[in-house]
């Protein structure tokens, strides 16, 4: 019988098992929802884990204010259609409240500032577990992170003090004030997520599929969507290109890729042939240094 049990079934089974452990072990969990394909997949898995009951956690969106409008629209529609609670907290408000320095420059990324809002919302609702869609194949520091990743009251990750994680036993016991980040799709690759989206017929925001868009072509050849958040210069190279987004983050730090892919089949074919890794192709923020992700995680990042 298990010959019918495909690798996607295994990955799904593990994710559902983890989500139910979160519900069983924590008082006040939350699902961090960005509107990207990984967190949309998480919501789909959560429905499988808990329906016909309600989800035992709200969806929480940390809104940088630099999002693509298509993603915000999708987020609101999804939460409404599910009848689940959506909590939105804005980075802008955190900046004002804490007197932080807003992102500056040509592509002002609020990516790092999200951490402050995340820690605020954790404190406000006393969340003890935050479920996220991070995957180990994304980045080398993530490859070392546990599925239940304990953070102290400052949200900090200490790679040297990680708990051993054995079998399918997840130790979620924590001190008061600490919290756990939980990554149910840790063992999925980019291709697995797309294959699953195809198998389950999961709806996604339109920006994942090919469309014409006004872009800045950076000197390094990356394509950045022109939005109100990017500061244009006179000598910028601007072009209309057929693009799609491989990851969905801030409009200011997520590059588009040129692509004619209009269906999930097309996208899967494209990934199979892709020569550049997901984050490498699209993230301006990881290129800063060899240990950029490790450093952000140590400071409380997702």
């Amino acid at each position: 019988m298990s010959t019918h049990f495909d690798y996607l079934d295994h990955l799904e089974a593990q994710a559902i098992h983890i989500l139910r452990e979160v519900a069983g072990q924590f008082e006040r969990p939350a699902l961090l929802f960005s509107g990207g394909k990984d967190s949309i997949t998480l919501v789909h898995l959560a429905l499988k884990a808990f329906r016909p009951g309600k989800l035992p956690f709200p969806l929480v969106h940390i809104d940088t204010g630099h999002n693509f409008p298509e993603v915000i629209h999708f987020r609101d529609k999804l939460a409404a259609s599910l009848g689940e609670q959506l909590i939105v907290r804005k980075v802008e408000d955190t900046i004002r409240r804490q007197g932080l320095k807003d992102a500056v420059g040509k592509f002002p990324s609020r990516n790092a500032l999200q951490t402050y809002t995340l820690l605020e919302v954790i404190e406000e609702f006393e969340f003890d577990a935050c479920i996220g869609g991070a995957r180990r194949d994304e980045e080398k520091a993530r490859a070392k992170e546990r599925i239940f990743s304990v953070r102290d009251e400052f949200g900090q990750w200490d790679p040297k003090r990680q708990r051993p994680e054995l079998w399918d036993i997840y130790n979620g016991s924590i001190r008061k004030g600490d919290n756990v980040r939980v990554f149910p799709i840790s063992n999925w690759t980019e291709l697995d997520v797309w294959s699953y989206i195809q198998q389950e017929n999961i709806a996604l925001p339109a920006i994942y599929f090919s469309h014409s868009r006004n872009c800045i072509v950076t000197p390094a050849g990356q394509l950045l969507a022109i939005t109100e958040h990017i500061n244009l210069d006179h000598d910028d190279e601007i072009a209309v290109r057929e693009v799609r987004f491989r990851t969905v983050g801030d409009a200011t730090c997520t590059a588009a890729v040129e692509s004619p892919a209009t269906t999930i089949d097309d996208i899967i074919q494209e990934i199979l042939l892709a020569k550049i890794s997901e984050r490498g192709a699209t993230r301006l923020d990881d290129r800063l240094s060899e240990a950029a992700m490790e450093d952000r995680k140590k400071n409380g990042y997702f």
Partner: protein
Amino acid sequence: MNILKFITAGSVDDGKSTLIGRLLYDSKAVSHDILQTLERQSRNKADGELDLSLLTDGLRAEREQGITIDVAYKYFSTPRRKFIIADAPGHVQYTRNMITGASNADLAIILIDARQGVVEQTHRHSLVASLMGIPQIVVAVNKLDLVGYSEERFYKIAASYQELAEKLNLEHITFIPISALAGDNVVEPSANMPWYQGPTLLQHLETVETEAVAENQAPRFQVQYVIRPKSNEWHDYRGYAGSLRSGVFRRGDRVVVLPAGIESEIVAIEVNQQQVETAFAPQPLVLHLAHDIDVSRGDTIARLDAQPAVTQDLEATLCWMSEKPLQPGDKLLLQHNSATVKAIVKSIEYRVDVHTFDRLPDDKLQLNDIGFVHLRTARPLVFDAYRQNRHSGGFILVNEHTHDTVAAGLLECATELQVG
């Protein structure tokens, strides 16, 4: 297509990271930009060779010290199979990391340096593989290029490993001569070893049988979460959500809820909100029972004619993972999948010398020690012997004050550890 999860174990300079790098690189799992980063970093190294180990060492301290500190998970696939690698460091102080990686592995690759042969670390790695019940072992004799691709050397090492394996009752062992650095017999067959006719490492990984035993075993199911919508539409709905860890459940099965011992019957099984007649491991399910009984998280639902052990007095092999030694009288939390109970250490019988496998009488377990203990729990535990069922025979111990995971435990039923 299915998944093979494997672990790699070797001592510090056995070329383990290079081997993994080679598998990823030759199977084209490394993308262009990551390769560029690798080339840039490799230029800083003395010999200028592409340093494939940089693919796996993800933390800054690891790159700086040139060692692997923590278990890293890597993913690649071929048209035949998907692979998850748990790359565990070789040092003795990281035994706990190897145990962590081994707990979910279908296969272990044990690396041996052809110049050194079987060394002390090989003993320890093999002991862990044996204890953790990893079904398949590959002994990859590496650096054959440095011993002139000697057939004699390879077979000599294989023979001495065979002796070791017999002491540990290790079965299903495959020997492959390789050079991870030069690429011999890792992905591509080697032109340098015409005397070796067997599969390359990757060919073996692609075709090796993974155990399908989970289905032939007794069904084991623990309740993770009780689904009670309490809505108008689902007024009386009460479903027990959990994963079937082994075996098969059928609608109509006579069952018993443990440890309470209350009998009932499965009236419905849901998978993905669809009612099914049969469910099999490792499916996540929702079970519905015939009677309105008190069932909560951590309870086991077992078939009446295939019941697990239920007792408060446990015998277990422990792998101790904390800097503070374990002593008789210590109180800890014992987490057995979704069930958590208080436990006290009644006595420590012995620890195992990880190199000779001798049992040394002792009343303490230090960091990275493996030993045999007697525990008493506050409530009965429902389990199988680890050797009978990997899915219901393992537990962890948690320090109540630090909340850290401080031990991995393998439960015994009456009979003792077959080591030594």
